[in-house]
């Protein structure tokens, strides 16, 4: 059928062997209540900064739970998505599928928000168990 789903750019094997890497400088801060947050500086120079009159040094803050912290800290450019899933599964005693779904969803959010980039190996074979 000529009208259909767009073919994904990467295969599942490539997606799992991709290595997420943080593309913003953000320190993980623990608040007094124990909540962990990352603050990202907002670009105040563009038209949006002019229209919304953003002050210099404005930041946006993301609150992370324990799973989020584990994934965020694993986005070091060395750990693959598959390794993050296995780490999460082992640490919280979850099934691989139960760990896979939130990890991929969270990484997708991070990528969409421009906090994380993905280094996708081109000719890598899927890692087999």
């Amino acid at each position, binding site marked *: 059928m000529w009208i259909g789903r767009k073919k994904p750019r990467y295969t*599942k*094997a490539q997606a*799992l062997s991709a290595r997420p890497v943080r593309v913003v400088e953000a320190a993980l801060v623990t608040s007094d209540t124990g909540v962990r947050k990352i603050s990202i500086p907002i670009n105040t120079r563009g038209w949006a900064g002019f229209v919304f009159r953003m002050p210099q040094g404005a930041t946006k803050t993301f609150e992370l*739970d*324990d*799973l989020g912290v584990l994934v965020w800290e694993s986005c070091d450019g060395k750990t693959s998505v*598959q390794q993050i*899933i296995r780490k999460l599964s082992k640490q*919280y*005693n*979850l*099934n*691989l*599928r*139960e*760990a*896979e*779904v*939130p990890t991929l969803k969270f990484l997708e959010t991070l990528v969409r928000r421009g906090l994380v980039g993905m280094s996708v190996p081109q000719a890598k074979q*899927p890692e*087999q*168990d």
Partner: protein
Amino acid sequence: MTAPDSVNFTRTKNTGSRLSWQGLHLSVPEKWNPLKLDGDDAKGSLLLADLHRSRLAVRWSVLPEKTDPEKWSSRVMTEEVGALAASEAVAHDPGSQWAASRLYVEPDPPGRDVWVGMHRATRRGVEVVYQAKRRDRVLVDSVLPGLYDTGRSGEGAAMWSVFDLNFTLPRWIPLVGKTLNAGDLSLSFADKQTAITVRQVAVAQLALKRFTLEQWLGRMQWVDRARFKPVGEANRVEFVTVNGRALAGWSRRMVQRRRYAWMRWAWRELTTLALHDVSRDRLIFVQGTDPQLPTRVAETVGDASNV
């Protein structure tokens, strides 16, 4: 239709995780998880996959009395692998419960290994398709020896196990709803006599940071607040499961609001348990229309040793 009250799984104890769905029991490698679960006990299918690809598909349907199992088996095998390959299929009975069972092993993988058979007691025709990427004996050595069918086991207990949510209902109650989200698994059952919902939330230590267990109980009951009202305060409950784990939490009853009294067919009350399973780090919620049933079911949650 009869089935034993207790099934011995000792042969397949170390093969991985258990999947018990609609009376069909499978032992599969731990890395395989359900991707798709469809249908009911009369006809349905399930698909298991690991991180990389789909691994195993199982289809079942109850065969009418007049259906010849041999003809059915031959037809299904031909449809699955083609006439030429089907002629190479050999008889293979993983237990003594299967009639007309045939196995086809792809000689030159990648390909599909297929097993079909009809359970003698439940008359369910079961088809197992294994996606073989290279030549291994996973289907023959691990999956088929752990395959068992209890079907609607009459008055006997009914075991359910999916992901790491496993429990035993005291009798067969049809599944009417499922929510299998990552970290939040819920199965609902109902028949004319009773209704029960079993829910498991992972990871408990994270879930309890957001709400206390009593608040979780309130949230669980909130869904039914339109038709039921809580009676009194929540009571503290503690008990030990069948495999010796201690569960502690809260219990509260809800009764039907008076404006729905004319609905004679509707449930009169609901009892909800909210429990913290410390050893498994899970929150367990059991809600039923029979006051005793939630406790009986909660005692079996997380017990994967026996059916």
